[in-house]
């Protein structure tokens, strides 16, 4: 065995899964700071990430700078023995001391005043600092493909939000599905936008909370429309489970602390290339839809 490392923290459900039964699987994909494992039994994806990545559903955080040093390769066998997660004979991850983390969204506030102000502020901030080329239009598209992608994203997000606002859920589902797999990057912009939007529908007491089943309906219809990695995040978001940086951003939208808001929004914007911007805009649009549905103008 070449390397042994401790797991620093991990998603509560993933921890349970590893402790409770004979987990076996294989490496699905490997990147510089993360690799994904696919479970043989369920086909579900799990992620092993280095410490610079935030906690997320189905994710374990390892005490390391990067994961590429271990030469993890696609199809490496994965199994658990005595609270140790083995990746072939290359790596042993000690899960016994991992701090458990759970994706818990805050409830929607009874007084929307601060939220309303912060959402407006966040939209302006994203307009200035967000990355274009996905949901946010790019001032100079790289090529006609990018221009057309941005145009389609704009039309489809608009149609989705309009129908959601008018309670036409079937039509909203249709337009949401048309966004899945649309856009650049490993997690297409449409998927990231929906992840953000789904998050807001799972805030307890939110005006659109009653429509949260909309999210699962979309993901069920869209399974074959995007790649496994992106689908995994979308599927988790459809049941209200999202990564830690998104939860921090939602939390800071509910309080009056601009420093906190900038820090947490920047962390979201730093995700991927344009993914963070797409996610943040999904969240902002979702919250605006909630505020409208609650009767206050945005």
């Amino acid at each position, binding site marked *: 065995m070449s390397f042994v490392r401790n797991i620093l923290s991990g998603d509560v459900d993933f921890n349970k899964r590893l402790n409770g039964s004979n987990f076996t699987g294989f490496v699905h994909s490997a*990147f510089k700071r993360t690799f994904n494992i696919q479970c043989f039994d369920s086909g579900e994806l799990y992620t092993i990430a280095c410490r610079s990545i935030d906690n997320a559903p189905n994710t374990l955080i390892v005490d390391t700078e990067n994961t590429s040093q271990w030469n993890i390769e696609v199809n490496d066998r994965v199994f658990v023995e005595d609270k140790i997660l083995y990746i072939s004979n290359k790596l042993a991850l000690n899960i016994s001391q991992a701090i458990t983390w759970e994706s818990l969204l805050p409830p929607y506030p009874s007084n929307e005043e601060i939220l309303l102000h912060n959402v407006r502020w966040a939209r302006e901030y994203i307009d200035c600092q967000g990355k274009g080329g996905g949901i946010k239009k790019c001032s100079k598209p790289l090529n006609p*493909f990018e221009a057309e992608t941005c145009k389609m994203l704009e039309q489809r997000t608009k149609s989705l939000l309009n129908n959601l606002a008018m309670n036409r859920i079937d039509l909203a589902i249709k337009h949401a599905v048309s966004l*899945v*797999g649309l856009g*650049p990057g*490993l997690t297409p912009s449409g998927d990231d936008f929906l992840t953000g939007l789904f998050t807001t529908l799972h805030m307890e007491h939110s005006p659109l909370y009653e429509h949260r089943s909309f999210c699962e309906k979309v993901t069920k219809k869209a399974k074959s429309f995007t790649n496994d990695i992106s689908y995994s995040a979308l599927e988790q978001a459809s049941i209200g489970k999202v990564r830690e940086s998104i939860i921090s951003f939602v939390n800071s939208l509910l309080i009056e602390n601009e420093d906190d808001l900038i820090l947490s929004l920047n962390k979201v914007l730093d995700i991927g290339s344009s*993914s963070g911007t797409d996610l943040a805009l999904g969240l902002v649009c979702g919250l605006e839809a909630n505020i409208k549905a609650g009767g206050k103008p945005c």
Partner: protein
Amino acid sequence: MLVQALIKPNTYFDSVSLMSLSTKANQIDGVEQAIIAMGTEMNKEVMKNVGLLTPEVEAAGTSDLIIVVKAETDELCETAFSKINDLFTKKDSGKKGKSDVKYSTISAAAENNQDANLAIIAVNGAYAAREARKALENDLHVMMFSDNVSIEDEIQLKNLAHEKGLLMMGPDCGTAIIGNTALCFANAVRKGNIGIVAASGTGSQEVSVRIHEFGGGISQLIGTGGRDMKEEVGGIMMLDGIQALEDDEETKVIVLVSKPPASSVEEKVLAKIKLCKKPVVVWFVGGDEEKITAAGAHFAKMSKEAALKAVLLAGADESKLNKRALNIPLIEEVRTKLTAEQKYIRGLFSGGTLADEAMHAAMEKFDNVYSNIQRNPEFRLKDRYTSQEHTFIDFGDDEYTQGKPHPMIDPSTRLERFIQEAKDPSVGVIVMDFVLGYGAHEDPVGAFLPAIIEAKQQAEQEGRHLEIIGYVLGTELDPQDYDEQINKLLAADVTHASSMQNAGLLAREFVVKGE
């Protein structure tokens, strides 16, 4: 035009790599369009809409990576695929140095770089003040490149810096040289014993390169930001800058550069000069000689004069200096070439103070000088797209840069205007600056050359001589090739002026006859 596709089955790259590869693939020679994306149904729909759908793309799955290239020939497509494959291979080979470390906050950057003592703030103006405050609170000097910061924030920041004994350069400060390191739009100049405090970016660049040309060197160049000399701000940074240079052992002579300051600020600055133990040269565009000399300072009417006085005060031997006098025979020659109708100068500048200096030279002889930066509202351009009589335009002014980079980086707006002015039969002389240095366009003269050649030919066909004066602001140490830039001007039959002062004076003298 051919469209070819390459599919990489079950291939995942992180989004940042995909975007970076996509941008580089679109820059490959001969490629009209290159797409690198996941093979989802929706992405295929986009490809269909833009005419890039091939049978291979149609057959690709959601976990496949699609590479599509549109180019003129098979050969170009093949070459592009080969280059894109190279890009994929090279993706992880680069080693990252310390300079690649990215911090989310000023505090984190300060904590992890204990030796750092200066922060450059170049974020959107709406957030710049907050970041600058954090930097000052972390005991860092600040150079704020950002503009659109409120004057209230500027005053607060400058007061905070003053209390803490720090420099607050900016907002809208584009030029500084601190500890022999050029920051933002500065030129590469020799290190020396002359310190500059400037409320003008290109003004300070001009003085620094002239000092360099006269054999002198710069100890520090402290920028204040253009509003520092306004009454509301009160010259806080100008006064602190003078003090900093007085305390700086390397600095023997101080030069102050500014557009005309508010009179209350000018008084404060002159009072400060009176107490200063080092010789001070003052070049305030349109400044009052009597007041300045009464304060014990050395008055300079123009930029070259300021540089010359500074190097002489720093100990240079005047007899050995080439002061680059005006070429009088050339003035006579050009006057004979211009028709009676060709009465006007059009000054098209990327540097604000350069425009101001040339405009002031013209105002000494003409009373019909218009500009977007004229202080007298009567002589402000009524329409920024249309010149009036003698016109001098600062293309770096906000009204010309909305949504566009500064003309020192992107010459397009000024180039369009040049073409327009060259067609005007009442124009005798067009005078332009070409600014070199860090951050500036890599070939500013080259960007204008085809248009200059065409304009000259067109004028000749119409039976008139179009006189163009070009001034290259730079040094032989700048990243661009200084000599090559001048040679390009000369090859296009452009009159090369050796300084901004000479450019302004030549432009004025060339058309005096027509007035």
